[in-house]
């Protein structure tokens, strides 16, 4: 049987087991718990029968004002005896104190009356020299009022003194000693009184838990939440997205963020006077050389397409300007160009279709404030194959987003490099509206330089941030994602 024993009680028992019998002061000073806690523990242990408490009577003396005077001057009978050594004293001439001295001297057989005068007896004459025992005691006790033994030995005399109102005698019961009982000693020995709190090596090694049991914890106790280190929610989503792509057979590709206009715009059939290329919207670089296209035969295809499609001159120096890419489609464009080039040389150089994806930062020269950011993430997918259809594009995108748990729908839209053009949207539960995720479509022939009947290319390039907004309703706006407020990071939940 396991008796619930508190840890204070346990400390007391442990100590008593060692010493068997101790007095209270010793116990208190060895336990460092404070007297109150020890007393509480003793009370409990006594009830459980683990200890016996031995009590003793204790007395305490307080000497009254009259008593103090007699300590100095002697008791009245002593004073009277000393006075009788030198002169005759008549009974009738005694003052108040003299009367008291006479009464006590007579009662103690120290003084007699002979013919109206007081006469010391033989013992009286001796007492005049050495004092009476009661006076001795009074003087003694005034020096050691707490002398327990002195008090106990002279209890009778002290009670006389008390009757004479010279002292107050206060007597009460106190703990003398504490002794461990047999059951108590066995309890400590067997550990039955010692439920386990913090498990330590000793507990595990001893195997004592069956006998001791475990201390119960308050399951509603308030504790501080531990803060886990986590990946950034956006990077986590990017991981998930990459996994989605790979699971559908896409190979990851990447390319420069600091890029020439050629790969960002021209190669994608964006006319050279298109507003998207304005300094107002695109960051240009001031300290880099223009890209040159000596080794890029593709430039000719691009030039021809622009002149035909946009009825305008096409300038290589405009295409060579260095800028921060406004979309990751530039990465797709670079790969597309080299793949198409290979295919032209050898139609069997690839097994079609080829599926590629890239994820990277893109830039917009916006007025940056707490809501608008200069850079954010985008993902770009591309499928190069034969006889690909708009319905294939819908299928791929639907599956990729299904992997992320986001349902999408499609509507027509326009981008210079795709035809048909597609915009796809997802339902944003929080605002109860469909929000745009990004653009997609079938690349124009002008971009590949190959007729669609021979080679078709599906492409898309949506942002990522909004998808996270849809998945994690606790995010209130996109700029939070790039703020890295540590409190915010710590309050994230994995979604």
């Amino acid at each position: 049987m396991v008796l619930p024993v508190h840890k204070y009680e346990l400390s007391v028992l442990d100590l008593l087991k060692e010493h068997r019998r101790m007095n209270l002061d010793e116990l208190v000073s060895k336990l460092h718990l404070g007297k109150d806690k020890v007393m509480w523990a003793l009370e409990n242990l006594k009830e459980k029968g683990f200890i016996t408490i031995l009590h003793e009577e204790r007395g305490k003396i307080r000497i009254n004002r009259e008593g103090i005077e007699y300590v100095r001057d002697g008791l009245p009978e002593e004073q009277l005896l000393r006075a009788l050594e030198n002169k005759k004293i008549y009974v009738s001439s005694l003052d108040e104190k003299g009367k008291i001295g006479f009464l006590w001297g007579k009662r103690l057989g120290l003084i007699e009356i002979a013919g109206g005068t007081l006469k010391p007896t033989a013992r009286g004459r001796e007492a005049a020299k050495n004092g009476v025992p009661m006076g001795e005691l009074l003087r003694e006790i005034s020096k050691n009022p707490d002398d327990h033994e002195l008090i106990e030995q002279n209890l009778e005399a002290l009670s006389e003194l008390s009757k004479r109102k010279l002292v107050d005698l206060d007597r009460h019961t106190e703990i003398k000693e504490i002794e461990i009982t047999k059951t108590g000693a066995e309890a400590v020995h067997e550990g039955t009184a010692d439920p386990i709190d913090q498990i330590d090596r000793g507990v595990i090694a001893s195997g004592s838990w069956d006998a001791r049991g475990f201390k119960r914890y308050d399951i509603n106790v308030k504790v501080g939440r531990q803060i886990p280190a986590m990946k950034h929610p956006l990077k986590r989503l990017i991981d998930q997205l990459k996994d989605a792509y790979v699971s559908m057979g896409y190979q990851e590709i990447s390319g420069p963020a600091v890029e020439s206009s050629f790969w960002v715009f021209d190669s994608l059939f964006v006319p050279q006077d298109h507003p998207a290329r304005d300094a107002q919207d695109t960051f240009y670089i001031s300290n880099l050389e223009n890209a040159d296209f000596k080794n890029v035969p593709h430039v000719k295809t691009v030039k021809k397409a622009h002149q035909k499609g946009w009825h305008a001159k096409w300038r290589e120096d405009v295409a060579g300007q260095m800028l921060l890419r406004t979309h990751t489609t530039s990465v797709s464009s670079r790969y597309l160009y080299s793949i198409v080039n290979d295919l032209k040389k050898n139609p069997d150089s690839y097994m079609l279709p080829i599926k590629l994806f890239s994820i990277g930062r893109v830039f917009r020269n916006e007025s940056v404030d707490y809501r608008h950011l200069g850079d954010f993430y985008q993902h770009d997918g591309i499928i190069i194959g034969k006889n690909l259809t708009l319905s294939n594009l819908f299928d791929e995108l639907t599956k990729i987003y299904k992997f992320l748990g986001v349902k999408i729908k499609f509507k027509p839209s326009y981008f210079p490099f795709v035809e048909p053009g597609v915009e796809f949207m997802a339902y944003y539960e929080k605002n109860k509206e469909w929000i745009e995720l990004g653009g997609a479509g079938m690349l124009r022939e002008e971009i590949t330089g190959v007729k669609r009947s021979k080679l078709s290319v599906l492409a898309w390039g949506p942002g990522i941030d909004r998808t996270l907004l849809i998945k994690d309703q606790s995010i209130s706006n996109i700029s939070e994602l790039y703020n890295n407020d540590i409190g915010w990071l710590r309050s994230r939940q994995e979604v």
Partner: protein
Amino acid sequence: MPVISINKRYLYSLVGQGIDDHKLADYMSKLGFEVENISGDDATIEITANRLDLLDAIGLARTLKNFMHKSKRFHYEIENNQPALDITVDRSVGKIRPYISALVAFNVEVDDNVLLNLINFSEKFCETFGRNRRKIAMGFHDFDAIKGPLIYKSGEDLEFVPLGHKEKMSFSNILENEEKGKQYASIIKSPRRCFYPALSDSEGPVAFIPILNSQRTRITTATKNIFIDITGISEYAVNKVAEVLAASFMDIGADVRKVKIKRGEEQRLTPEMEKRYITIPIKKAEREIGVAIGYNNVISLANKMGYEAGMLGNKIKFRIPEYRLDIIDEQDVIEDMAIGYGYEYINPLPIYYSQPGGLEERTKFNRKLADIMVGLGFSECTDSYLTNKQNNFDKAGISDDKSAIMLKNSNTDTITMMRTWLLPSLLNNVGKSGHEKMPQDIFEIDMAFRAKDRKPFESYHLAGVSINPKANFNTAKEVVEGLLYAAGVKYRISELKHGTFIEGRSAEIVLEGKGIGFFGELHPLVLKNFGIEEPGIALELHLESLYPKS
């Protein structure tokens, strides 16, 4: 993308029965546009940049009527080839603004709606497709006030009363003092000189191109016949725009006449209203969209999108509407077929595919490092690549080594360059989070940028910061050793002096004789610069040389 604001009452009166707010929003979305607001008197609609014929209420109404199968008008012809007016183009405009086209619309009932629509259309058009008048500008005039013929010429600094003014002003005065003059002056200025292109009749300038029209030829509600000039730097564009305008005026019942443009020996009539046809095998359209349209539906579908169409064997011959300046070739027509069919009815169709996908080696390595950092108790951040010298260099205690990629034209003062390393971003993050519980341990794995020999270099870095009352060099080294051991990197440590760290409490990480990163105890001045109140350590690693060679 242009956003237009159209008076709903006027639009609905042009469309006729069967249109309401709900249907407008629905049809616009199905056509690829978006109604942004429809609650008031005006509808605000976002139009895609290719469909500039929809910038006015008339063009929009025409497209809606076709889409609702309410219209049988698919093309616009001007039977009368007698020009209403002649314009002689002088060689002097060749250098600055060579091309002009024009048309005259007779018998226009000019009420407030028409006037407002004209103004809105012209403004929106010149701002977007016209690239703020640089590529295209147009002017509307009262034809009866013009004492023709006209001459389009660039030369003297002439005088006239500009639109909205009472007094005569010289062209140069207009460029310096008039609102529109100041706004568009750059279009007719070359670095060496200023041009003064003008369209003039026998009484003087009708328009200072492309700045202001004359007060004399302004349009009022009393105007019956409207002359429109379109000038620009692309011949194709000025001619097509004349056709877009012709179609709109014909839609509101005007009698549109051509204008003769004479350039030396060459003469041409605008708007040309040239007939264009594109023929597409129906199978091809079906194959690209991935649906079966069927011969029975294809004509009706073409009409719905505004094309007159006919079968030619197993091909469809589309006549391209004159106002559609966005149709380059059959790809554009196929898209319209898809839109007419309805994207919502195009069922997803799987691509059968069986090649394995894969991640780049860098991605795999970065993931591994991120996992280790999280395991070491660091939380991940995602910071902007854009920064400024103060953050990137000064506050971090290092000097500008002139290797940063600098932005030429940022709209924001605090963004002037690409970051060259990641640590300042992280220090910034902890600096603004001082009230959060310590320790604060964060990291980032992302890109940093440098220019070398005027060429860009991009590389992945890993940076970590730990702000912690007990941080010191040894705790920094513990993190570095833990990270690099787990990542399997063999390295050496050597002494390093670095402004971000306390001297004697920082070190370089060396791999095969090359420094690949550093770490140490952050200098109190750097901490202070970023507003950090507790001690901290940091590390930054260049990852490019760590990636497995593929």
